[in-house]
């Protein structure tokens, strides 16, 4: 009756051999293509470095003014602008300005990359039910896989540094934007699409004039979620060399520095709230004319 209490598993040597051969194969792949892949991602490296340099070398009052201006144009809400300014001032006062700027820069690049990759995938997915049923399980895996696991292949391929961190963050954070682009386009009112067709719109015209504008509030919700997930992942990505607020948090965990951890954690919460409120308010403003008032 032994098999009832011990799950009859694959025998140990076969399992080890299996793992070894997969690892070996991946390693060989890395050795063969690692450099090529790395140079493929060079533009990202360039983008990351320049964005970070801009955020950390620009005088802080200009950065605060810039963020306040963006918050104002997106939300048209003084409360959101005021709380953004106060949060940034507090972060600076508690000497976390540089780390925060590095994180903001990283999030910015991650979001831009996620949008650039995610929206086209979402659009393709909305056009074909087959593609949707193919991509959906992949997104499920991406969202449920423990985030640490992503770090392993990325590090093997690209080593430690900003770019591997960026890729790990984007892989983790991109699913909402893909899903909600797909959903937003699929939910566009059939009657309005029919009207666009009746006037002879080409595929591109119906995408540009009808589907994208009407899906935009939903897509904005996806961008908002992507930003939030990127912020969560940025701390974990600091394990593979991403600079910013994650590094002190990691140090605080290793050395049990309670206050250091709390301060940096709160700084992350602070910028998360700024991003969240601003992008949500923007999404709301986009929606203003889309609601039906009359029956």
């Amino acid at each position: 009756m032994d098999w009832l209490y011990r799950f009859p598993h694959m025998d140990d040597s076969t399992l080890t051999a299996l793992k070894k051969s997969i690892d070996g194969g991946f390693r060989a792949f890395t050795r063969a293509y690692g450099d090529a892949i790395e140079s493929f991602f060079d533009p990202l490296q360039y983008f990351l470095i320049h964005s970070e340099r801009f955020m950390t070398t620009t005088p802080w009052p200009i950065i605060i003014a810039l963020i306040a201006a963006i918050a104002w144009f997106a939300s048209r809400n003084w409360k959101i602008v005021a709380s953004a300014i106060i949060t940034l001032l507090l972060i600076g006062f508690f000497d976390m300005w540089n780390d925060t700027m590095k994180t903001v820069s990283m999030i910015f690049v991650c979001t831009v990359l996620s949008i650039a990759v995610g929206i086209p995938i979402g659009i393709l997915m909305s056009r074909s039910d087959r593609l949707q049923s193919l991509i959906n399980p992949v997104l499920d895996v991406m969202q449920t896989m423990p985030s640490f696991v992503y770090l392993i292949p990325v590090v093997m391929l690209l080593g430690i540094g900003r770019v591997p961190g960026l890729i790990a963050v984007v892989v983790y954070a991109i699913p909402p934007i893909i899903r909600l682009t797909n959903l937003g386009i699929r939910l566009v009112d059939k009657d309005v699409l029919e009207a666009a067709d009746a006037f002879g719109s080409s595929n591109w015209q119906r995408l540009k004039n009808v589907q994208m504008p009407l899906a935009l509030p939903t897509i904005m919700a996806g961008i908002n979620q992507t930003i939030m997930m990127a912020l969560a992942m940025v701390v974990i990505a600091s394990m593979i060399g991403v600079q910013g607020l994650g590094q002190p948090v990691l140090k605080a965990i290793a050395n049990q520095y309670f206050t250091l951890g709390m301060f940096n954690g709160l700084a992350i919460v602070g910028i998360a709230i700024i991003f969240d409120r601003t992008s949500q308010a923007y999404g709301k403003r986009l929606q203003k004319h889309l609601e039906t008032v009359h029956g």
Partner: protein
Amino acid sequence: MAEASARGTGIIIKNLYKIFGKNPQAYIEAVRNGMSKTELNAEHGHVLGLKDINIDMPAGCIQVVMGLSGSGKSTLIRHINRLIDPTAGEVLVDDTDVVKMNENELRQFRRHKTAMVFQKFALLPHRTVLENAVYGLEIQGVPREKQLEAAGRWIARVGLEGFEDNYPNQLSGGMQQRVGLARALTNDAPILLMDEAFSALDPLIRMDMQSVLLDLQKEIKKTVVFITHDLDEALRLGDRIAILRDGEIVQQGTGQDIVLKPADDYISSFVKEVNRGRVIMVDTIMTSDMRNGGTGLPSVATGTILEHAARIMSEEHVSEIHVHDDKGKPIGHIDMQAVISAMVTPISHETRQEAAE
């Protein structure tokens, strides 16, 4: 294309069938052989949308399509610009079969030959009234000033001047419908498809929009397909009327034909409520026995409606009137008695048949 629109664009629909469902081709033969809509739905889970539709719409005429809710009117009009693909049949416009067009031909056809007003308005909610109105011209790539000029004119004509910068959700239902109308008219295509285009309008604006359409027809003769529930509207606008029931045409002809000779009870019940004085023409009831060789009495032209003839009689304090043809030659005579009995007797289908027997 210019040459085609100069002589107008007729539409001929031939043996058109539409079955909704997973596998429509499988049932087309059965439907041709007389399977009913109920049977097809109950036993095979397919909906018979249209059955053997044949309509010839001459260029420059207003073709009205009438029928109760669910009779297939919207389905029919959507076949003309192929928003719906038929299961079988042809839709000939200028001798070209719309059903056989490829994607690109169809797009050009929709851009340059048709404009449509939708039952549910279908405005672009993120665009202002003006931006909605220019939509058709915009996607054709017409220069911006021309777009604005045409759109501005039609927005004014449908009575929405001053609302150019409003969004559809800031307008009432009737105003939204007029935006849809302005959008279609701005497109200036030879075929105008109007799916219950006036149904959300109040009676006064509705009359006004009917006049817009009739005036338009006097200047530039478009081929208009007009769907309505309202027989009075159908009779006022329609050069020809087709009546649909359960996806089949039960009668088509001029307004006079329909009112005076309803083909069955279904149509009689439509016709019962109509204001006959405004439909029936003097020609229909006049007799050819003339007093004094057609002199000494007021006279009206052929094609005059009874109501108008009656008004003249009462203004002139006479009880008889003559009818003359286009050249002024007297050809007939009617008296008040005949006018009144034609106006008040809604002859039902059965009584008419009984009388005939």
